[in-house]
């Protein structure tokens, strides 16, 4: 399948690589089909929309930065992505960058759960007291002001 992307132009992907969010992603409800793209050797991936060439999220594996990260979900929350065998599940988190000061955070409160076998995915919401919305993985040091 050929897909248009803003960052990489036209790319070719196989049907098996398509990740489908039947409920959409909060804030982007019409966009349901995505693909994960690697760029460079770092820990980050693009979650590129197949419906909108200019839409791509930065995602990463939460365990790179929060090794103790564990999520507890009710069976009902796994039903809509047909995830019965947890071994087929994959967890990603959104990465946000803010300027002034330069800060990079990952959203541990609302991870993405992917069923690797069916390609179905959803963003789940964990209880706010369990994990933060903005878990800092980098903060630029404040520049010293000469006195």
């Amino acid at each position: 399948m050929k897909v248009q992307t803003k960052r990489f132009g036209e790319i070719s992907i196989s049907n098996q690589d398509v990740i489908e969010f039947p409920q959409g992603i909060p804030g982007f409800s019409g966009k349901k089909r995505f693909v994960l793209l690697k760029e460079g050797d770092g820990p980050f991936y693009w979650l590129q929309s197949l419906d909108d060439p200019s839409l791509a999220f930065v995602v990463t594996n939460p365990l790179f930065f929060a090794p103790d990260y564990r999520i507890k979900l009710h069976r009902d929350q796994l039903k809509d992505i047909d995830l019965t065998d947890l071994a087929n599940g994959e967890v990603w988190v959104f990465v946000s960058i803010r300027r002034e000061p330069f800060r990079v955070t990952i959203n541990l409160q609302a991870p993405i759960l992917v069923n690797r076998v069916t390609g179905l995915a959803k963003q789940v919401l964990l209880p706010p007291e369990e994990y933060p919305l903005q878990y800092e993985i980098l903060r630029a040091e404040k520049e010293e002001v000469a006195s």
Partner: protein
Amino acid sequence: MLVLARKVGESVIIGDSIEITIVDLRGDVVRLGIKAPVDVPVYRKEIYEQIVRENLASSDVDLSLEELGNIIPTPPDKKK
């Protein structure tokens, strides 16, 4: 906005499959019971808005992942 008066124990139905019941009233807190199909997510609004804000920030990254990976490399013990 449609406004309906309901007593504790009474419900409203939205469409065919969503039911909202007034479970309890304590001071200025109303507890709602919500029955909805699994494909209809239910969120507290302020939390939903926070998630949308984070998702928006994640879709608005102007660095390449190569640049970002140079600033924040894969932790050495996590490399395959």
